[in-house]
């Protein structure tokens, strides 16, 4: 993948462990409630950032045609794209 062609920005937010420990300590000090959320298949829930196409992966057949003659247009933000983490956010 090429920057500027297939993706522009790739930044995705991450929390540092220093911050996580600090927050956990604070919630222990003040007796706060803590909840955790995990997004399942998060990336694919966002629409794709720009027009992108991919080769048809091995294992898929199109009856009467060679799969090499076709490409797939990507509609959802799929795992493996460089910008996937950013687009999701």
């Amino acid at each position, binding site marked *: 993948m090429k920057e500027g062609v297939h993706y522009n920005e790739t930044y995705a937010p*991450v929390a540092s462990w220093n911050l996580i420990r600090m927050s*956990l*300590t604070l919630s222990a*000090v003040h007796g706060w409630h803590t*909840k*955790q959320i995990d*997004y399942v298949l998060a990336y694919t*829930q966002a629409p794709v950032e720009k027009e992108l196409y991919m080769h048809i992966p091995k294992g898929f057949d199109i009856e009467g045609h060679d799969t090499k003659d076709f490409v797939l247009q990507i509609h959802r933000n799929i795992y493996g794209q460089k910008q996937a983490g950013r687009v999701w956010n």
Partner: protein
Amino acid sequence: MYLLYTDDLILAGPDQSEIDTIIQELKDADLNITKKEGDLHDFLGVNIERQDDGSVLLTQPHLTDSILQDLRMDASTKTKSTPASSSQILFRHTDSDSFDRSFDYRSVIGKLNYLERVSRPDISYLTHQCTRFSADPKVEHGKAVRWLGRHLAGTRDKGLLLRPEDTKDLEIFVDANLPGNWDQTDVANDRGTPRSRHGYVINYAGCPIIWNRNCRQRLHCPQRSPNTMAFLMRYAK
């Protein structure tokens, strides 16, 4: 409070109903994004356990197991009570035989560093020592990592306990040794020996929050005490 790690999220706050509202809003805002939620238990592969007395325990048994597996160790391994030999300091050991590659040195080092960064400040010094020689590990370095592995085998369920103490606020502990590991016999081959090492840990309410350890590139001004310098280094960052 809202902690986001790409697609993992922790919510913390004094009011349970407010947290529930936020979760509901998240559900409403997007299609059906929140599928799994619950009290804190596992965040980025780290077990987060709320003890009955309100303290929080961070452990990484899975990562520790994976390190032990890489080192071809298991539950029957003879354990060590210390992370490293107290009598041996690691140098470059230029004259020693190369490490026999019985495990993937750099891969284990990578895992050890993540373990140390998150829940095991106690092995901080040794992981740093072993990391320094990743480029050309010798027998001694391999042995040191094995020793550490034995220590981890005996302490795999141990981790970082955040138990706040009311009487304590922000505290900084620093330590440094000026060229204390200076080895005159090897200095021609190993310019690392005269380097000063320092480390620090910053506690809040008696809980370790931030820690680090390092080797200095330059020699310190001898009039200043090493502890002062370590403290200044912290603030120079």
